[in-house]
């Protein structure tokens, strides 16, 4: 794989509780000439990004996260995180990043071994750039660069994701390299991430999500999703 020299400047923060998967994603990213930092939890990721969680109980009037200005020299161009982790899930981490004024421009990509449509659409609605099914492959990693380029040229702020939400229920469009191993979509999204807090959603939101679920074809293809509503085939 040939990469331009400038790309070696991109720094990716990879978050996964599985050591095997950290090794794998680290190798995938390094092969693609990215600088990589790996951590094993969402809270360590936030710490690395310079945010620390205040204890909600001791500090009820503060937001649960506040910027730590001592740590700003570490530039991260993209966060790629596992969805299912004990404690803070990848979705929780995504929300914290998007809620932070200092971090919200960092593109976030979610990885999950489970093809759960409701999970995918929830992550995309919350502002994730991509949703990769595990095991992540080189062809997936090749899709990261445009997101980093977008942020690197800081001329325009991140496109508000609400726009996509209002647009249609087609937020998740799939393109694929065929891979028969990919599990079929699972309808229940409860089992393996027990630590995940219950979502309180507006009925409006619920309807949208339902639409997305129905819109997804349950075929056994290796799918990727992005929040542009566009199908990008670049395998």
């Amino acid at each position, binding site marked *: 794989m040939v990469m331009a020299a400038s790309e070696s400047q991109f720094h990716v923060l990879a978050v996964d509780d*599985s050591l*095997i998967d950290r*090794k*794998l994603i680290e190798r995938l990213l*390094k092969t693609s000439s990215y600088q990589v930092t790996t951590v094993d939890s969402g809270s360590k990721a936030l710490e690395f990004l310079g945010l620390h969680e205040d204890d909600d109980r001791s500090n009820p009037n503060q937001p649960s996260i506040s910027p730590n200005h001592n740590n700003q020299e570490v530039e991260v161009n993209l966060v790629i995180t596992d969805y299912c982790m004990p404690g803070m899930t990848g979705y929780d981490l995504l929300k914290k990043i998007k809620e932070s004024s200092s971090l919200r421009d960092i593109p976030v990509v979610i990885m999950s*071994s489970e093809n759960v449509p409701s999970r995918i659409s929830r992550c995309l609605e919350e502002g994730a750039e991509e949703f990769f099914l*595990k095991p992540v492959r*080189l062809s997936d990693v090749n899709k990261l660069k445009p997101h980093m380029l977008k942020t690197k040229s800081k001329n325009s702020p991140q496109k508000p994701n609400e726009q996509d939400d209002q647009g249609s229920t087609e937020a998740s469009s799939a393109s694929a390299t065929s891979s028969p191993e990919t599990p079929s979509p699972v309808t229940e999204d409860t089992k393996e991430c027990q630590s995940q807090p219950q979502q309180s959603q507006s009925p409006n939101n619920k309807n949208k999500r339902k639409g997305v679920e129905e819109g997804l074809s349950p075929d056994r293809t290796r799918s990727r999703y992005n929040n542009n509503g566009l199908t990008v085939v670049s395998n």
Partner: protein
Amino acid sequence: MGGNAIHLQRQLAEYSKSLYVEGFLDDQFKQLQQLQDESSPDFVFEVVNLFFEDSERLLNELTKTLSQPIVDFRKIDAHVHQLKGSSSSIGAQRVQRVCIAFRNYCEEQNNDACLRCLQLIRHEYSLVKRKLETMFQMEKQVLAAGGSIPMH
């Protein structure tokens, strides 16, 4: 490269091919091999060894959890989920498939079926472990004879 190296290399190629044909490994293992280069010459070996360690830990946990008088199926499911993840990450396809069945029985809280799945996973795991160890051994022999390991 001597005739012996060529012979060993051919044997290795046939052996690894058989692992795909018999379904022990899938394409994910080839992905791992692709990621191995001069900067990480032992990448595959390292990741596979992590898989061995992880699997053995999880199999012991599963055995312990399933032998309790009151089985905590949520815990079982969490362990099987991890094993499914690590087996799919290295391409240990047959282990991964049993994990999928296992999780369904876990959801049904079917104790007997879970025990059978555990036995089956142990069986599949020990098979794929032996096969991978044999393959690594053959790779060593190829290198020792002056041959090279083809990258996929």
